[in-house]
C-alpha cells in the first residue's frame, strides 16, 4: 500500500513556523510548516521521552521539543548535536497550495 495521498487541506491551515497533528489509528503525526512554506511530517513523539514535537518551537528546518529542548531535524527526524535518536518521518507533499500525507505509509504498522 503506498501512494495514498490524503488531502489534509490548504497550507493556510498550518501556522507558519508551527505544526498541527493528524490522528491516525496507529499514531499521531505532526505536520510542520516552516517560515519558507516547506512541509514535513514526523511521528509526534520525541525520540528522547516521547514529547509532542508538534508543540515545539520551529526554527529553520528544526523543531525544539517542548519537554527537554532536544532539537530534532525535520528533514530526517534525527536528533541534532550531542543527542542521539530519531523520530520517524512520513511522506508529505505540498501541491497547488494543499498539503497531502501518504496515508498508505502513515497508517501502516
Amino acid at each position, binding site marked *: 500500500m503506498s501512494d495514498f495521498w490524503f488531502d*489534509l487541506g490548504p497550507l493556510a491551515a498550518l501556522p507558519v*513556523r508551527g505544526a498541527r497533528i493528524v490522528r491516525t489509528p496507529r499514531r499521531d503525526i505532526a505536520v510542520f510548516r516552516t517560515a519558507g512554506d516547506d512541509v514535513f511530517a514526523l511521528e509526534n513523539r520525541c525520540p528522547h521521552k516521547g514529547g509532542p514535537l508538534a*508543540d515545539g518551537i*520551529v526554527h529553520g528546518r528544526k523543531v525544539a521539543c517542548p519537554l527537554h529542548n532536544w532539537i530534532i531535524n525535520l528533514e530526517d527526524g534525527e536528533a541534532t548535536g550531542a543527542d542521539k535518536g530519531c523520530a520517524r518521518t512520513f511522506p508529505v507533499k505540498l501541491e*497547488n497550495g494543499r498539503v497531502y500525507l501518504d496515508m498508505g505509509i502513515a497508517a501502516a504498522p
Partner: protein
Amino acid sequence: MPQASRRKLLVLGNGMAAGRMLEELLARAPDRHAVVVFGAEPRVNYDRIMLSPVLAGEKHFEDIVVHDDVWYARHKIDLRKGETAIAIDRRARTVRTAGGTVETYDDLVIATGSRPILLPVPGVDLPGVVTFRDLDDVEAMLGAAARGGNAVVIGGGLLGLEAAAALALRGMRTTVVHLMPTLMERQLDPSAAYLLQKAIEKRGIEVLTGANTSAVLGDGTVEAVRLEDGRTLPADLVVMAVGIRPHGAIAAAAGLEVKRGIVVDDHMRTVDPDIYAVGECVEHRGVCYGLVAPLYDMARVLAATLAGETVPGYAGSALSSKLKVTGVDLFSAGDFSERDEQDEIVLRDPSRGVYKRVVLRDNRIVGAVLYGDTADGAWYFDLLKKGVDISDQRDTLIFGQAWQAGGVLDPRAAVAALSDDAEICGCNGVCKGAIAGAITARGLTSVEEVRAETKASASCGQCTSKVETLLALALGDAYAAAARKPMCKCVDLTHEEVRGLIVSRELKSQPAVWQELGWKTSCGCPTCRPALNYYLLCAWPGEYRDDAQSRFVNERVHANIQKDGTFSVVPRMWGGLTTSAELRAIADVADKFKIPTIKVTGGQRIDLLGVRKEDLPAVWADLNAAGMVSGQAYAKGLRTVKTCVGSEWCRFGTQDSTGLGVKLERFLCGSWTPAKVKLAVSGCPRNCAEATVKDIGIVCVESGYDIHIAGAAGLHVRGTDLLGHVGTEDEAIEHVAAVMQLYREQAVYLDRVWKWVEKTGLEKIRAAIMDNHEGRKALVARFRKSQRAVHRDPWAERAAGRELHEFMPLAVLTPARRMAAE
C-alpha cells in the same frame, strides 16, 4: 515552400508567450507554417511587464511594443486584432471567434494567458475598480490619476507595489492594503520585506499589512474600501492586484485536461496531439507560472517542437524577480525559505540599507535575496541555475563577483591590513587611526570605553566586532573579550545593548531589529526570537504585534505542558482566596473532562493535571462560566501573590495582608515580564506567606509595609533585600508596580528579579523607586499602559475560538473513515 503545402498554425492569444514563440519558430523554420493569430486586445504585441514604467510615465506605449504591424506583415502573419476565440471544435479542427469567424487549423497553440483575480467582496464591480493587466487598465488608472484624490491598491505583491509607486508618483494619495504580514511574501524574506516597506513608505505611500478587505463601498462609483477590522479608506480609484489565475476556459470547454491551468507535457502538448498551450495559461508538472522567464523557456521548447526538431523537453524554471520601482533595488531568486544558519550567508549593512542573503544546499546556491545592492543578482542566479559548487569561494561569495579574484579573507588580518584612515564606524564617521590612537593614548581596554571616548560602535553597533579586533590587535592577550556576552550567535551586541537600541532607534518589529542591528542570520534563532519578542512587546505596548511562534508552547496555549503531552490548568485564585461555588465548579470540570489529578500548588492555587490539549478550550469555557480566569501559571509574568490571613482573622496580623494580596494580583497580572514573577504578602514579621524568598515580598508591620525584593527559592536560594518602608496600602501598591515596570524595562530576558538586582545594584534601584518620586509615578504610568494592551483573559478569548488551530488536530483518521475514503 508554396503557401498551400504549409501547415496551418492557429495561435489563440497575442501576449508575450505567443510573441516569443513565433519569433523562435520563425528563426527555426520560417516557411513551415501559415500563421493566423487571434488577439483579444485591439493592438500589436507589447512587453506587458513594462506597463509599470508606462504607468509611472517613464516610458511610452511605443517604447514597449515588441512586434509592430510591419513585423507581422513582413513575416506574413495574419494578426486579427480584437478578435477573441470562443470555441474549439476538435473533431472539425476549427476555432470560432466572438465575431463569428471560423478558422481551421493543423496545429493549434493556446496562449490565452491569465486573468487578474477579483476578490469576492461586495462592490468589486463598481466603476473605479480596476485590475492591472493590460494597456486598457493602465489608461483607466491614468485617467483616474489625472483627477487626483485617493488610490487604494489591494495587494502588496510585485504588481500592486509597482502600481502604487506609479500612482503616488502621479500625485495620488496612495494606500497599499496587503493581506499577509509582510510585503511580497512569496519573493522576499521578512528582512528584505522590512526594507522594502520602509522604502515604499518613504514615497508617501501608506502600507497596511495584515489587512483584509471586506468590501468596496460606493454609490454608483467607488468611494471607499472597508477592511475587516472596521477601518474605512477613502478611495477614488481601487486597483485590485491580488494575483492571477490561468485562463483556460476555452480548453476546458473543448474537453482538454484543465486543472489550475491547461495541463501540458514537457513539449507543451495537451492531451490532444495537435493542440499545444504555452505561457501563463498552462500547468506544467503541477506548476503554473506568472513571471516572464519561464514563458520564454516554454516558448523555445514549443517553437522547436513545432519546427519538427527533437529537443529535450521543458523541465520547469528556476524563478527570479526584480521589482520595477525606480530607486528600489530588489532581487530575489530561487528558494530562500528559512534554513539553518550554516546553510546561508547573510550580509547586512544598516547604514547603507543593504541586505544580502544567499541560501546554500550542498555547497550550491539554491536561493538569493538582495536588497539595496542588486548588482550581483544575475551572477548569483547564474551560479544557481548552473548548480556550481561554490566551496572555494564561500568566504567571499556574499561580497559578489568583483571579490572572486582575491584570496581567502581572515577578518582579523583584514582589519589589520586597513589603512589608518579607513572608516570603521559608518554611523559616527570614526576611522581606524582614531580608534587605535585612543586605545594606546588613553589606555582603553574595553568596547564600552572605546564607545565613550570615540563614539565608534556607539550607534547601530554593527562595527562592534571590528572595534573588538582593534582592541585585540593593540592589547594582544591582555584584551579579554569574554567580559562581553553577545545575546546569541546571531549578533555581536549584548542583551542590554539590543534593548537600548530598540528604544532609541524606535525599532518596532523583529525584521527591523535584525536589519538595523546587523543580525548575522536571516530570521534569528530560538534564543534571540523569544527575547526580541519580549523586548519589543515591552517597548511598544499595543503597537508591536506579538509573535506566537516565537513563544514556548505553554505561552501559546495558556496551559502547562506535562511529560505525557497533556496539559495542566490553573485558574486564578486572587490572593489565594476561593469560594465554595468556585470549588464546586472546579470539581464539576474535573468530573466532566475526567481530569485524573487535582493538586494544591506551592503558590496557593489548584492545579488540574492531565487535561487533553483538545479539551482545553472547553475546560476554560466552563471555568470562565463560573467566574474564573487564567492563573497564568505558565507565564513569564505575574504568577501568584501568596498571602496569609492577616489582620482579618489572625491574632498577630498587623494589616490586611490578604486584601493587599488580592489588590496586587488584580493590578499586576497580565503584562509579560522577562521571567516569572512571584509575590507574597505576610501580615506580620512571622512571615507565614514566606515573603522573604519571593521576587517581591511585602511584610506588614504595625507602622505600615516593608517592601522586599530579589528573593529566590528554587534552583537558587536567596533571602530578599529590603528595598524600603511605606506607610499606606496605596503607597505599597504604587511602589511594587514601579519595581515591576523597572524590572520589565531593564532586565535581560529570562533573568529573575534577583539576578537583575545583583547585576544592577540595589542602591540604583532604591534610588529609582524610593527616592525619585516623579520617576516612580512615570514607571507606574507606563506599567498601566502595558496593562491596557493585555488586560483580557486569554482563556476567554480562546474558549471563544481564537487560535483554534492550536488545539484541534488537522485531521482525525478513524479506521471506518479511512476505509470509506479508500
